[in-house]
């Protein structure tokens, strides 16, 4: 139990003593996770919307795939991305392995099915007449979709937060494609793992708490943004 208390103390001191390394790691975590979430959203939102609103063959298969994809083991995603980015791999020429970019790629792969499945679920729940009514008030396709998005704002935000939560907290892929290189690809989860394997449990828990704080802050910003008066 004292380990937990210790962790709390260390978390506070890490944050408020302005430990530069901790801040750098936190910032990198935020950057990588937000970028991965953004990429996942860019790919996943249209796909999820198409699944929810479209009527093309293979719709249900895609949805089942997305649902399964939520169980994509990060370790395996990390490994596959690593193999692809290997010097001997097809994308080796870019020299991306062990860079934040590679982490973004791997985490985006992890987050995309989450986004697809949850966006589809969110949009399917809005009254199907909603889009029709928006069209009937002069909405072009894009504006109607935007209005639909605004209407399903809360579950869409939940989807975004689920995706962000999935990537910010995962460690398997981050470790494998990032390599946990200090100052370059070390993020809060890999730092926590390292601290654990060094036996510095208090520090590991401190990193975990910082991570939770970060997640909460992002959630807060997103939630407040979603509840702006309209």
């Amino acid at each position: 139990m004292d380990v937990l208390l210790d962790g709390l103390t260390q978390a506070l001191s890490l944050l408020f003593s302005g430990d530069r390394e901790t801040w750098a790691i936190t910032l990198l975590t935020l950057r990588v996770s937000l970028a991965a979430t953004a990429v996942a959203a860019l790919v996943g939102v249209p796909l999820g919307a198409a699944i929810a609103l479209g009527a093309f063959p293979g719709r249900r298969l895609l949805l089942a795939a997305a649902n399964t994809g939520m169980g994509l083991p990060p370790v395996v995603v990390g490994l596959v991305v690593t193999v692809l980015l290997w010097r001997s791999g097809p994308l080796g020429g870019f020299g991306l392995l062990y860079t934040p970019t590679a982490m973004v790629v791997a985490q985006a792969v992890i987050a995309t099915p989450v986004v697809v499945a949850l966006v589809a679920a969110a949009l399917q729940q809005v009254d199907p007449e909603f889009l029709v009514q928006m069209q009937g008030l002069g909405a072009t396709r894009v504006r109607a979709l935007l209005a639909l998005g605004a209407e399903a704002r809360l579950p869409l935000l939940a989807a975004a937060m689920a995706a962000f939560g999935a990537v910010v907290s995962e460690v398997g892929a981050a470790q494998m494609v990032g390599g946990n290189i200090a100052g370059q690809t070390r993020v809060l989860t890999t730092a926590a793992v390292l601290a654990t394997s060094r036996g510095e449990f208090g520090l590991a828990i401190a990193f975990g708490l910082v991570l939770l704080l970060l997640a909460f802050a992002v959630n807060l910003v997103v939630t407040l943004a979603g509840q702006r008066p309209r």
Partner: protein
Amino acid sequence: GAPAAGSSAERSLILATTTSTQDSGLLDELLPAFTAATGWAVKPVAVGSGQAIEMGRRGEADVVLVHSPAAEEEYVAEGTAGRRLLVMHNDFVLLGPEADPAGVRGARVDEAMRRIAGTGAVFVSRGDDSGTHAREKSLWEQAGVTPGAPWYQETGQGMGATLRVAAEKAGYTLSDRATHLAQPDGLALLVEGDPGLLNVYHVIEVTTRAGERVQPEAAAAFADWITGPDAQRLIGEFGSARYGQPLFVPDAGKPDPTG
């Protein structure tokens, strides 16, 4: 002299090494000095010995720093590797519960292994083909014991995690001294100093025979530097401040104890 900062950003090598060098903090000490001295930035990838050697074999790393002599020799024998140089050593220790139910305290290591097997006391193995695991397997072999369930348990994890499992299960385990010193694990040091417990680290150059994107000049730079006087001095000093004793003994240029 050191190259311009601009180009140093471009020049980076991948070092595949074992978790013990990272977990002990040695890399944090060495790498900045290496970069300052040669202009090469380093991406250290700390993984199991098996994975580190595999990365060298596939040309995914430029240089490998590991402690698994048998696997290393096999790898070098394949002919794709470059120089294999002795860097340093520390030693393995046999740890166990303070109560020592198998009564191994102070015994020779092969006798200790036999007693553990004989009493059926829990022994926790890393089971991950790491250098430590490889050494443990050869110790069982020397002791003439074939370990098995239920007393023999494999964690498949790194040293730190394995130490904790052993502590929780009040079992015996084999560990490198550095990790044991670094982690307050509550296990007692029962057997040490046996010649069979030497833990030797080699640096191995990867060549373009393993993959066309390998940077042999980087491999040479690292191998030369880490066996050079500056690095050897850093290795010799590392850990004294914190643990009151050095964690590694620099060995560059000495005769290789593993043959």
